[in-house]
């Protein structure tokens, strides 16, 4: 401990002369330590606080390998896995894994039993009202062999002279799991003879079971039958498509795919993977174009493939004869160039038309909404609009309260002051949004700090009962495409109230490109910003290259995050 004290000043002084790469490592290393070592608390000298301010720009944060027990920290708040890491920082609770209820646990036998033996077993488990149901459920859970289930079915049939529908469906489940096609077809015939129509789960099971059998055409009949009584599921379509592809009926498969898409069902990634798997090797242009169309579908709907699908896509491209594609798995850093081929990725900025469209939707849905009094009041909105119109466009809009609460170590006003001063070095015109209560001189909000800040930035204070986020969005959109916002809020609630999914997607794109996040802050020492991404994460092409973002198997991506891994394909 004593060793540190004399050295400290020297360290801080040298730091300013260090090469840039070392400085960029700092925040990453800081994270390594905050998460692992907590034992140090006792051995700390409280006087060691050093007032010297050293603020650094850490937009590029590289990782030191081998130092971190946590998964690598993604470089953006929206990158896949970020929310998981945040959750790990916030709580240490392990998620209790859901297990099969022990109450209903009956261990099914290993070999087929005779009817008498089943009766005996049933008496053992007398306390179950529906012994057969419980037994079948356990068989499904334990993946018992078909013969065992069949022997129970025989016992039931012998005793009652009939088999209940629920038993039949459960038996069918077991057969489908073991892919016993002959048995499935028999059950299908029995069901067809016995019942006029079935319900959704039996239909799904039959479609799944028959899709890779010689009777696969029956699945199309079943699909029509589902349509009559219930809604389609993407699983049913997926199984039918798989059946068609297995039997080399590619055109039928593509037809089913289009039918599915027009019914507003999102195909599962496995279904898409089947297309790329079964359409190799590519020889004619017709087939190639159809598969490319699927990639465009992914682009339009912002679906990101998973790892296995992306490998299939890679293989598919490499199998196109005469074009000589070369695929590469890579991960992007914060620059807009693909590290594998150096090709520039698509820009994240919205087009003029999209921008005005989103702007209007924001005003209508987010600020006014169903009742303008829920977020603000008409007088206040008018006052704000007047305020924005009187001022020239801003470069940065800061969510004052959100930024001020970044750390609890400081009075809020001090934190905000640091951020505002730092941003004032880089940008000309700042706007800070806050609430009226910030103006009352208090422990958290020092009058002096507030006065200092107002020299560097413009301020707008809303009522204490109003929401400030809608104003943040409005001010930023009003200032134009160059204006950034600073907040740690992911703005999910505002995204949710937008009326249609296209606008939601555009808003998210704008947000990725315009939101700066205070990533780490130590009062008086470190202030780093996570800059907005310069490129758009979406399936993209320019004819000679394809860039496809995908989810790797390791990181669990939340719905409001984007993948960081890419597949880079180019023609040689």
């Amino acid at each position, binding site marked *: 401990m004593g060793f*540190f004290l004399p050295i*400290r000043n020297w*360290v*801080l002084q*040298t*730091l300013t002369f*260090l090469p840039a790469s*070392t400085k960029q*490592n*700092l925040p990453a*290393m*800081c994270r390594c*330590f*905050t998460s692992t*070592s*907590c034992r*140090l*608390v006792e*051995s*700390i000298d409280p006087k*060691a*606080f050093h007032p010297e301010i050293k603020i650094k720009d850490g937009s590029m944060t590289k990782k030191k390998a081998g130092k971190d027990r946590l998964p690598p920290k993604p470089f953006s708040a929206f990158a896949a896995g970020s929310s998981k890491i945040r959750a790990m920082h916030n709580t240490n609770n392990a998620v209790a894994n859901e297990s099969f209820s022990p109450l209903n646990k009956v261990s099914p036998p290993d070999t*087929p*039993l*005779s009817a008498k033996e089943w009766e005996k077993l049933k008496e053992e488990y007398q306390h179950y009202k529906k012994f057969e*149901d419980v037994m079948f459920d356990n068989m499904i859970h334990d993946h018992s062999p078909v*013969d065992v289930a*069949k*022997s129970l*079915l*025989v016992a039931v*049939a*012998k005793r009652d*002279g*009939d*088999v209940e*529908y*629920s038993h039949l469906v459960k038996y069918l489940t077991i057969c489908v799991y073991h892919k016993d096609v002959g048995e499935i077809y028999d059950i299908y015939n029995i069901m067809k003879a*016995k019942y*006029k*129509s*079935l*319900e*959704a*789960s*039996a239909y799904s099971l039959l479609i799944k079971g028959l899709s890779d059998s010689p009777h696969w055409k029956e699945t199309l009949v079943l699909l029509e039958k589902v349509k009559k*009584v*219930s*809604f389609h*599921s993407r699983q049913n379509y997926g199984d039918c498509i798989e059946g068609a592809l297995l039997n080399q009926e590619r055109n039928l498969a593509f037809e089913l795919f289009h039918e599915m898409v027009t019914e507003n069902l999102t195909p599962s990634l496995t279904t898409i993977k089947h297309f790329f798997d079964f359409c190799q090797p590519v020889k004619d242009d017709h087939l190639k174009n159809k598969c490319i169309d699927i990639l465009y579908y992914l682009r339009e709907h912002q679906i990101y493939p998973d790892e296995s699908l992306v490998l299939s896509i890679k293989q598919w491209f490499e199998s196109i004869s005469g074009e000589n594609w070369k695929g590469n798995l890579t991960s992007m850093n914060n620059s807009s160039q693909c590290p594998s081929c150096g090709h520039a990725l698509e820009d994240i900025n919205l087009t003029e038309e999209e921008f005005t469209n989103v702007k209007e939707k924001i005003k209508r849905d987010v600020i006014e909404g169903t*009742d303008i*009094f*829920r977020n603000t009041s008409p007088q206040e909105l008018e006052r704000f609009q007047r305020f924005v119109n009187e001022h020239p466009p801003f470069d940065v809009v800061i969510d004052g309260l959100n930024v001020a609460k970044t750390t*609890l*170590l400081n009075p809020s006003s001090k934190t905000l002051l640091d951020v505002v001063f730092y941003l004032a070095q880089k940008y000309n015109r700042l706007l800070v949004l806050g609430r009226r209560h910030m103006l009352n001189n208090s422990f958290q909000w020092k009058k002096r700090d507030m006065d200092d800040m107002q020299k560097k930035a413009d301020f707008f204070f809303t009522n*204490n*009962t109003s929401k400030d986020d809608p104003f943040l969005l409005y001010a930023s959109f009003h200032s134009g495409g160059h204006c950034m916002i600073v907040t740690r809020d992911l703005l999910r609630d505002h995204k949710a109230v937008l009326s249609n999914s296209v606008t939601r997607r555009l808003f998210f794109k704008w947000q990725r490109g315009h939101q700066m996040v205070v990533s780490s802050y*130590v009062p008086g*020492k*470190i202030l780093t910003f996570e800059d907005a991404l310069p490129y758009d994460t979406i399936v993209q092409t320019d004819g000679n290259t394809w860039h496809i973002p995908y989810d790797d198997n390791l990181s669990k991506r939340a719905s409001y995050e984007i993948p960081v891994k890419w597949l880079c394909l180019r023609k040689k």
Partner: protein
Amino acid sequence: MHLLNLIRRSAFKLIAPKMTKYGLFLTMPSKISTCGTLRMIYLNKNISKNADEDINLDEWKLVVLSGLEKEAFEKASPEEEPNIAAIKEYIDMSRRLGKAAPENITEEQLNKLIEYPSVTSRNRYLAFLASKEMRKKADKVKKKRLQEEREELRKTMDNEELIPKSRLFRAIWDSSMDDLYNWKAAQAMSFGQPLVFDMDYDDMSEREMQNTVKQMMECEGANRKAVEPFHLYYCNLKEDGPYHNEFLKRYGDAWDNLFVTVTEKSYAEIFPRNQIVYLTADSPNVMETFDHNKIYIIGSLVDKSIKKGVSLARAKRLKLATAQLPLERYFHWKTGAKVLTLDQMMMILLTLKNTGNWKEALEFVPKRKHEGFLDPSLQHYIHRQKNKKIYEQNFKKKLLVEELSKKRLWNGLWEE
């Protein structure tokens, strides 16, 4: 045909084991041997040569198919529209699978079901109908049981007990209680403190509307039975609106005899604004005491989809004072929203009005939502402790960060 099957099956059960043991296939002394049985014997012979084990795994198919003729015949009577019939069939099959679905479904319910846009919403509606049906059935059974018990009692009772004894009062029947309640309610109508229900929430779903009206009826009932009832106002109630229709459906003729002021006007028109307090859980102000001169307003709204701040927005628009119950102050809150049902609010307000005791009033907050009352004398102390804890934590964090930043700089230098 069915009878024949039954006999055949039972006969087969008896005979089959013996046959395989002795190989007496042709000398079987059965007069009712039919084609099916013979085939089964044949299968038996082929599959299980082992004399001890006599499991024929495909036997169930024959059994099921043999019972088929009857079922198929029963079902051959399609008279309804094919689509409706198919959906009825579908519901029936779901029920057989053990899913929550009603046994009988009316035409009206079926049409409503078809209108639902997704599988989940349909399933939810079916489950609702199923539970309703189950409850009705259980009620019927219980009613029958009670009736039987009563009859039993009447039989065993001695005749002596039936002879009337001399009493000071006649038995007090429900009707005489009703008279008393009505008298008090009438008194409240002329002298009581107003309590307003705001009925201006139109965009509720049908289920929400039904729940609201049910809760309103409970409120009215609780108010009538109170020692000193409120004078209830149903404001913004539109004639022939969804509320009105639902009320008429529930109350029937009694709707016109209620001791309640029903009006299409807004409360802001009837009462002076400075007296009005809108009660809403979203309010920033906490209600300290019950004021007998104020007019409290409750939004009669059941909100299953979470629309935050709807009632607060309403009060803001009319520039009314707002308040929320001091739940935080009196409870260790556990789970659940701080939004209470209308009848709970009613009971709390009635108790407050008549006793002024918060603790007694807040007994009506559901027990599952809190972990007991806070000790009021300790409240200040607890608050201080909380602040102290936060302060200590922050201080520790501060020191930790200090130490870490130093260490980091040090390591950084070495790596360089």
